[in-house]
């Protein structure tokens, strides 16, 4: 008779199909801030889009005028993967940041290691909902200003003040198109998560 491997203890015969441990980070922000771009820059697969339950977006509600050439937007989650090692996979979820998608966030943010809120300084108020959400849920997060065309139109202190985020929340400037830049921003988030976990479990 064939022995039945247990999933948690040395299932040697089944290593090929033993799934990796999944962990996730959430990338949030308003329309057109660079969520899909950021996931695509760091993911080892082309970003996939997962359709969420709602399929219609109220047209004309969202101000897209600041992002030329952007005419459509999807109510969907971007999905990317980074294989950390054969037993550990980091998933990235890019989620729309508006208030009315709040119900989607619960679904995705539950169990996330942390979040990165992407901000376009030309439309700061688009990210309030995401910042509030992470703060309220007590999820480790950082704020990343996407420097479209290398221009940040406010200085960082102004942004911090405008977003009303505490000094504990890291604020970085990044380029959503660059792998290294996205990687470093995510490392900032993980650093917050690690610091917090260490404070909760002193060695």
């Amino acid at each position, binding site marked *: 008779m064939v022995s039945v491997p247990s999933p948690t203890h040395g299932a040697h015969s089944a290593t090929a199909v033993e799934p990796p441990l999944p962990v996730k980070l959430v990338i949030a922000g308003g329309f057109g801030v660079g969520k899909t771009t950021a996931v695509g820059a760091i993911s080892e697969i082309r970003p996939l889009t997962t359709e969420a339950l709602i*399929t219609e977006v109220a047209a004309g509600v969202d101000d897209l005028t600041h992002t030329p050439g952007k005419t459509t937007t999807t109510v969907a989650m971007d999905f990317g993967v980074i294989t*950390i090692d054969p037993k550990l996979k980091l998933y990235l*979820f890019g989620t729309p940041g508006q208030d009315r998608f709040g119900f989607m966030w619960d679904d995705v943010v539950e169990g996330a290691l942390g979040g990165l809120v992407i901000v376009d300084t030309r439309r700061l108020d688009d990210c309030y909902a995401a910042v509030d959400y992470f703060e309220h849920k007590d999820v480790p997060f950082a704020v990343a200003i996407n420097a479209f065309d290398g221009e940040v139109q406010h200085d960082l202190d102004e942004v911090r003040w405008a977003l009303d985020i505490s000094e504990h929340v890291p604020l970085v400037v990044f380029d959503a198109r660059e792998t290294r830049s996205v990687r470093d921003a995510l490392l900032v988030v993980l650093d917050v998560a690690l610091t917090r976990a260490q404070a909760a479990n002193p060695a």
Partner: protein
Amino acid sequence: MVAGEPVPHNAAARERTAEDSARDVPEPTESEVPTEPVESAESVEPAEPVEPAEPVGRASAIRPFLLTAGRVAGSGTGPPLPVETQIVTTPDGLSALRSLTFERRDIVAACRRPQSVAELAARLHLHLNVVRVLAEDLRAAGHLAVHVPNTGTVHDISVLRRVIDGLRAVPDSRGSLRDSS
């Protein structure tokens, strides 16, 4: 339970993986689940993962409810499956592949390679909640093993360190061509 290990969704899900012998007699599953005809070992599909053909088009707003007979993810016993939940085809699922149709078949075929609920939804162009409902069904029928992640992982310092080290190792640039597999 070791913190950070995926937790089997239930005992039925735990017992089987695709490397077990396909000759096993299926265990009894929940009574309301219709038994799928199980084919003989000779007809079992090759073990190496084969991507199902990409379905065309986008899921409509109405179809999800038809696919799931009106059921909604999370309305049953527990919370909805987390989006990163890993799903793997069992030997029974592999044996039953030819008797399955449409989305169920696509899901069981795709999960010969373990993948997350979100990935599956994206690849098969199905709504997240449709995948959740169908995955629960297929698990109940013994066709899939469903590994729900342990919530304690978030605070697991060693896991966080591994993720940080792994992310640091990501090169400065990804290069232009990556394939999704």
